[in-house]
């Protein structure tokens, strides 16, 4: 394959002993093949079940089943060729690639405490204006001095 073809197909860098290296994850080619086979089997199973169900309910005439099935397989192949590699490295598998510490920190970010800030703001907006003014003055002594001078 020429250098141009390599660029065109965006083949990830690989080493001589048959591993793909996307910069962070090392994946064995055999594992990748096995996983693809498993996915293919699962997809076919799903197609079989849904088509069988459709046929038993006389929704789709039986003659159309094989045509639909091959179309479905074509779509799957095109789809996996087009997005398969990118998808494997995207958000859907993010938590799998995060280490334990990262997941812990992510959980803290998601919910830092028992009362969320939106709720706290809502309660403060509803609070008595005098109390609010006291809080604002306490936080911004310079601004309130300026306001006093201006008055």
């Amino acid at each position: 394959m020429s250098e141009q073809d390599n660029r065109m197909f965006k083949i990830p860098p690989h080493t001589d002993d048959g591993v793909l290296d996307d910069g962070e994850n090392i994946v064995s080619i055999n594992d990748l093949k096995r996983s693809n086979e498993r996915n293919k089997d699962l997809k076919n199973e799903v197609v079989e079940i849904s088509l069988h169900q459709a046929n038993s309910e006389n929704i789709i005439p039986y003659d159309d089943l094989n045509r639909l099935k091959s179309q479905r397989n074509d779509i799957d192949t095109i789809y996996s060729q087009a997005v398969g590699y990118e998808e494997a490295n995207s958000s859907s598998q993010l938590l799998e690639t995060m280490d334990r510490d990262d997941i812990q920190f992510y959980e803290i970010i998601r919910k830092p405490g028992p009362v969320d800030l939106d709720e706290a703001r809502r309660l403060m907006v509803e609070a008595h204006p005098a109390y609010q003014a006291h809080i604002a003055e306490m936080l911004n002594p310079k601004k309130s001095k300026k306001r006093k001078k201006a008055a």
Partner: protein
Amino acid sequence: MSRVLSKAIKLLVGNDTTSESLGKPKKRPFKELTERELIQLESEIGAKLFGPIRPGCRREFFNENKTNWIWYEEWTDESKKVQSTTTRYEIHDKGVLKVQDGKPYVYIKGDELRNLSIAIQKYYEIVMRDIYKRDHVTGEPIN
């Protein structure tokens, strides 16, 4: 006509000004804080979490809503031109997405995720205690 004008001003600048007080601010000792003003107060605390701000620079760091955190930096470059950068951190089910203008969106991890987590914890603790007068662990009001 004055009623229409009053309504328009109210829509533009909120409840602080009436037609009688145009150009002459009305003294309001019990002025209510709006959600926007509360976010500004929070941002004053948030900006200090990352250490001292250099002279001539401006920083904002605040929680915009349940899922978004904003970090804004403004500075003057060598040619005296004001530069700024805004980073939005979006909390998704799958992770924290970092959104910056003109750059590819990425889910953060490692040190960046840790630093953001520490900043958010600190922000939450100080803001809850100083602005909302609530215990950051229990959520109960502080007397």
